[in-house]
């Protein structure tokens, strides 16, 4: 097998990319468009708990919340519940009979600093435990050292280990330093078989930003036009309000088109976003903002 060679990727101008990304914040989403956006956002949330102190009961509570975010209201379930591998079986059971997927972070999340064989094994076991989606991290060390072949091979091997499960590849853009690097890492992940590319682990201070997401969306678009393969996108971490989320939707709509406005191709990794969406939803029907205390936290 030939070693992987990174094809030429377009350069990115930081100033202009950030300007373009900020232009989506000016999109004014009102009335019927807001209502539709809130439903879309709900269905796209990967409701996440990734803590050392996670317990089965905490995960079960989160699953309940994800299945039926606001009991009594006709609202969609979230896209997935995202947990550590050891919690997959708990989540799977709690979500049985619903449309909500179980996503799990394998491959020595969040640093990715362990042995290749262990990452493969972790992935296999997590899928065997019932995960529908695997969120892996790339080896940033190898990437930054220029060892693109290793990054590619690792993603390809994990993809194989995933079997039927969908693979989301976390680039951890906050550690990559430039948009050019983000564009390169996106290309490697897509070439290696990623179903989704994802910005961040949420475990370092710089998580998803609009410009980084824009650069990845543009990478997805160019990859689609070149190969015909449709790749999904998941910004994760740092998106806390419904307003931010619908600005992301506007960015997806105007960069990739309406085809990507589905939870099969766009997810938002978040924990606190959900309740803000619910508050906005209540506000649309009642005309008033309610206090956060009226919304259950998990």
């Amino acid at each position, binding site marked *: 097998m030939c070693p992987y060679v990174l094809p030429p990727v377009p*350069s990115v101008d930081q100033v*202009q990319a950030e300007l373009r990304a900020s232009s989506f914040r000016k*999109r004014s989403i009102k009335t019927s468009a807001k209502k539709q956006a809130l439903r879309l956002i709900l269905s796209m949330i990967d409701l996440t708990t990734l803590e050392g102190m996670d317990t089965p009961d905490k995960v079960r509570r989160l699953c309940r919340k994800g299945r039926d975010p606001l009991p009594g209201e006709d609202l969609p379930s979230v896209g997935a519940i995202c947990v550590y591998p050891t919690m997959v079986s708990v989540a799977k059971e709690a979500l049985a009979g619903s449309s909500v997927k179980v996503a799990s972070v394998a491959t020595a999340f969040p640093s990715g600093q362990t042995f290749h064989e262990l990452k493969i094994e972790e992935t296999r076991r997590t899928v065997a435990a019932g995960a529908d989606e695997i969120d892996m991290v790339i080896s940033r060390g190898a990437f930054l050292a220029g060892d693109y072949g290793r990054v590619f091979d690792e993603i390809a091997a994990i993809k194989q280990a995933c079997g039927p499960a969908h693979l989301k590849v976390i680039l951890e853009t906050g550690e990559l330093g430039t948009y050019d690097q983000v564009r390169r890492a996106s290309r490697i992940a897509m070439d290696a078989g990623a179903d989704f590319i994802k910005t961040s682990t949420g475990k370092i201070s710089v998580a998803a930003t609009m410009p980084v997401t824009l650069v990845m969306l543009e990478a997805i678009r160019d990859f689609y036009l070149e190969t015909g393969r449709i790749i999904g996108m998941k910004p994760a971490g740092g998106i806390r309000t419904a307003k931010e989320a619908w600005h992301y939707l506007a960015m997806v709509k105007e960069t*990739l088109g*309406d085809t990507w*406005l589905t939870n099969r191709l766009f997810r938002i990794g978040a924990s606190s976003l959900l309740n803000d969406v619910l508050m906005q939803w209540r506000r649309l029907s009642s005309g008033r903002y309610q206090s956060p205390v009226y919304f259950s936290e998990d």
Partner: protein
Amino acid sequence: MDGIDVKEIQPTSPGASEQSGAKGRTPVPELLFGDLWDYAPAPQNTSHVKIAPRYEHFIGGEFVAGTGYFSTLNPATEERLSEVPAADDEMVDRAVRAAREAFDKRWSKLPGSERGKVLYRIGRALQERSRELACLETMDNGKPIKESRDVDVPLAAAHFLYYAGWADKLDYALPGATVSPLGVCGQVIPWNFPLLMAAWKIAPALAAGNTVVLKPAETTPLTAALLTEIFQEAGVPPGVINIIFGAGASGAALVRHPDLNKVAFTGSTEVGRAIQRTLAGSKKRLTLELGGKGANIIFDDAPLDQAIEGVVEGIYFNQGHVCCAGSRLFVQENVLETVLRKLTHRLASLRVGDPLDKNTDVGAINSSEQLEKIRSYVDIGCAEGAQMHQLACELPDKGFFFRPTFFTNVVPAHRIAREEIFGPVLAIQTFRTPDEAVQKANNSPYGLSAGIWTDKGSKLFAMAKALHAGVIWGNTFNKFDPASPFGGFKESGFGREGGLHGLLPYMEVRG
């Protein structure tokens, strides 16, 4: 467009159309820029904008009734907004006399710090009334509220605040020289940035100690009319700023008045020539900021996605009613296919329509005359054999609108590649080498602006040196700052506005 082969850019096609993609690759369904999730109308509330049924000349700090009243329209609805008088020779004389008296008796005797205070007050008042000014500008001009709110009004305020800072520092502006004001300045401004151009003209003139008579364009007098209120509130001494209304005849009457020390004009090259003839042999100083046919140059090593933003910003910003618009796009031939594909996708998501909707990207053409001019140029382009591409969007029933358009198969001899259209119409040509790009870009009677898109710093600076244009943007386009000089080479005019250089045309310099 009957009988003309137009390639329509469909924003709402069902995704069935196959596009060939790059050579040798499998066709994939085209991206779908549809209405699966459509933005609902987001109209800007204008209830706080009070428009009087009639406005008067502002002379010597007072409102002076005139003659020959004419209407100003909202170009997006064709509804009449208000009316203003047309200044004749007598009214011009009255305004110039008021300005002369104010110059002799008051303004030139004030210390710079006091002049600065007045300019600061104007700048702050513009910020305080920014929403009102933005709405009024959009209603009278047709530009999207997004632009008047985020570009025109903040930049206008920034110009007053910037030149306010110079007013008490003129002694340090030119080391080794002392400076003094010229006197009375006659200023004639265009309709594309009515408020901003008023700020560009008034702020440096006043900072340097001059008094002014300003005539806004006949289709966009309303923000200037609102400015008169702001001048009164800001305590501008009577006669320091005089505003007279009218069309070309009033402007001609102003520039030929014998008691002006300086004329500043922004507008068409044709009128600029006429003014220059009028002023020949007189004592009057002159600066002209005229037409343009800006070259936007994309190299194969450019950040292409961002370059496309620059193309859109360059030609569709303000409906292309921009003297420094990037109306000629030069693309290195080996990336033409990619650039066209990306531009087509980008155009599909442009929103054309009601300028007061906060999501509108491209608003109304300022007047029916201008719309006719754009249409005739597009017909000429097609007749000359260029391929037209146009966004197939719906347009409002009323008002003056034109779909964002670009032409391929353009050759340098085509009129659409040589003449200023002043509308959302782009002419795309190719080049092979940097030298060829320079030669093609410079092969124009105009020389106002140029844009260069490349990832190589050395190439960028070499190009910037070789291009004959007064304003050159690197990896961006249509960015303005009060501290940066703006103006043209060749038939795009002379004199600079903005920065220290913008003060020079308003000062006498003694060694």
